[in-house]
């Protein structure tokens, strides 16, 4: 009797429980080992860039919320900042602080959510709910200042929409304390766990050169040993006023990416605390040109501006032709670039590692598909 084995094509998604949205991964497996992987995206494509060409500059802000809906503040910021750069606007001091506060709080929320869903992928269910509980505290703060829990639409060209409500800064300080305590608990629950370490250490290794060549950014890049953070190396807004570290790891595996993100939560909390101390008590919150929502007309020109979102480098390439609407908006979405490496990274891995590796890249499909 002769036997033969054949390869099997397995579709992960678009409706698979661990695809973080509508992501499809076509893998061929031999037994449980992956021999090739092809990410297929576009199920959530909404044509944001085309929509931008038909909308006034300000009108596009709510659309940026919907790219990476876990970290909408930075998306808001980078779009507004690129228009501001074209127009050469000075941002009022208080507005800058409010921007930093909201962006960093949002980064913590985004990392917490990543932590929860990643652990869910790894088969631990409790961290997911703990992460959501703490994320909720942050979303409440952001809700108080911006009026929405996820799609904030808070920033405006030239400043921010609202000033902080009464007592908000104090409540933020309390939230920071609370989260810092809780994160410590979560660290105990997961980081030391041998099962978790066995699954994540040495898995999904990305070398330094590979990470740069594949254009990875954010925690995924830093976990491979590249000490680069746009907030530090090319400070935008007022990040040069704060004292914080860039956590890096040399290992480049899933565990390193995990540790980098956890360390980043602590760093972000540090920035929030400092911003709470430094923020001026009152002042303008928006440049006078930005107040007239529909009348923004930047001069002709083009600009590429980038910022550090929770997932990596988010960039906006903006071309203006002196009209009410932008001529071209290109959004460099970190998830879109980060997920690309999967096809190389997954080869030779067992299926059980697939979810760990995919989860460790922290991909939001709203951002991948734009």
């Amino acid at each position, binding site marked *: 009797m002769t036997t033969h084995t054949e390869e099997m094509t397995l579709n992960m998604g678009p409706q698979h429980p*661990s695809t973080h949205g509508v992501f499809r991964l076509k893998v061929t497996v031999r037994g449980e080992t992956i021999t090739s992987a092809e990410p297929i995206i576009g199920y959530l494509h909404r044509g944001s860039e085309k929509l931008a060409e038909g909308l006034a500059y300000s009108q596009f802000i709510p659309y940026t919320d919907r790219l990476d809906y876990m970290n909408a503040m930075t998306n808001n910021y980078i779009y507004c900042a690129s228009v501001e750069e074209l127009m050469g606007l000075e941002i009022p001091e208080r507005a800058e602080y409010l921007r930093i506060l909201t962006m960093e709080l949002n980064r913590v929320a985004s990392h917490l959510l990543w932590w929860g869903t990643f*652990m869910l992928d790894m088969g*631990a*269910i*409790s961290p997911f709910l*703990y992460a959501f509980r703490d994320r909720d505290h942050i979303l409440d703060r952001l809700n108080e200042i911006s009026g929405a829990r996820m799609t904030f639409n808070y920033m405006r060209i030239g400043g921010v929409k609202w000033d902080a409500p009464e007592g908000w800064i104090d409540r933020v300080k309390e939230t920071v304390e609370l989260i810092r305590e809780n994160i410590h608990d979560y660290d105990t629950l*997961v980081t030391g766990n041998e099962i978790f370490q*066995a699954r994540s250490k040495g898995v999904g290794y990305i070398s330094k050169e590979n990470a740069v060549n594949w254009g990875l950014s954010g925690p995924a890049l830093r976990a491979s040993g590249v000490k680069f953070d746009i907030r530090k190396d090319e400070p935008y807004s007022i990040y040069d006023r704060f004292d914080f570290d860039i956590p890096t790891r040399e290992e480049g595996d899933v565990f390193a990416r995990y540790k980098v993100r956890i360390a980043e939560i602590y760093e972000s909390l540090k920035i929030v605390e400092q911003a709470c101390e430094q923020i001026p008590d009152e002042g303008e919150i928006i440049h006078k040109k930005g107040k007239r929502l529909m009348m923004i007309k930047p001069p002709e020109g083009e600009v590429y501006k980038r910022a550090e979102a929770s997932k990596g480098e988010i960039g906006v390439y903006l071309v203006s032709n002196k009209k009410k609407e932008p001529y071209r908006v290109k959004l460099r979405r970190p998830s879109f670039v980060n997920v690309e490496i999967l096809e190389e990274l997954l080869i030779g891995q067992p299926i*059980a590692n697939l979810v760990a590796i995919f989860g460790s890249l922290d991909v939001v499909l709203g951002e991948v598909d734009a």
Partner: protein
Amino acid sequence: MELMPMVLYAGVLLQLILAGVAAAILFERKVIGYMQLRTGPNRHGPWGILQTVADVLKLLIKEDIIPHAADRKVFVLAPIIAFVPSFAILATVSWSENLYAADLNIGVLYFIGLSSVTTLGVLMGGWSSNNKYALLGSMRGVAQMISYEIPLVLSIVGVVILVGSLNLRDIVFFQESIGLWLFIPQFLGFVVYMISAIAELNRSPFDLPEAESELVSGYHTEYSGFRMAFFMLAEYVYAIAISALATTIFFGGWLGPDFLPGEFWFLLKMCFFMFVWFWLRATLPRARVDHLMNFGWKVLIPLALLNIVITSIIKVWMG
């Protein structure tokens, strides 16, 4: 026993077990909910007591779907094959000194032997579904269940050597006579038993056959309605049976202070085991297949063998 009482006992036990499974599922959801800062089910009946009943009713009235490409006969048979042994093994469980179905002198052997038939149901279900996830899940399941069967059996051998009998009731009487529950002298065996029992049951952190983040739902991906209910039932009855076995051989069965009946103590100890399993599920991430296999073959089996050696030496030395 005569035929009539036997049938009656089986019928009553089935009803009780069904109620027990319903309670166990509720208990699991409540415990895990509480550990996750949730309240768990709370809509049906006071404290959500009727939640499982509602779920079961929903499963029963659902459309019975058999996939077009499935191997029909095998597909239909699989859940039954998975369930029947899990129920049959309960016959040897002695709930108290007087309440038992069969006083079998090879009770342990019967228990372990019959329970491994469930593996077949898993394999059949996974294969006949004609679904890739189900196939992978059942392959994992079978590999895992067969591998962990060995340390499970070996861990009990220590107890059998000490007691000198395969009869489950004798094991309890022995514990009564020495005035000590066997998990103390057989601690190593107990630990190995607990770990391999979890793997045997496909429960978290060893729930690889149904790892929902990787394989959707594993071997019962294509099952729905009451067939799915059968798999669920088998899983929970099996969990009850394994904790009953643990109670009997390591925790002194029905033994306990006299002011409450033996059945109560038995149930209480079982609940303790169930709680531990739910606790594990709420705490640990899922292990990986190769780690699981390595752990079973390279750690648990040597440990179990070591336990047998030590026990034999002690037995011979002590006379």
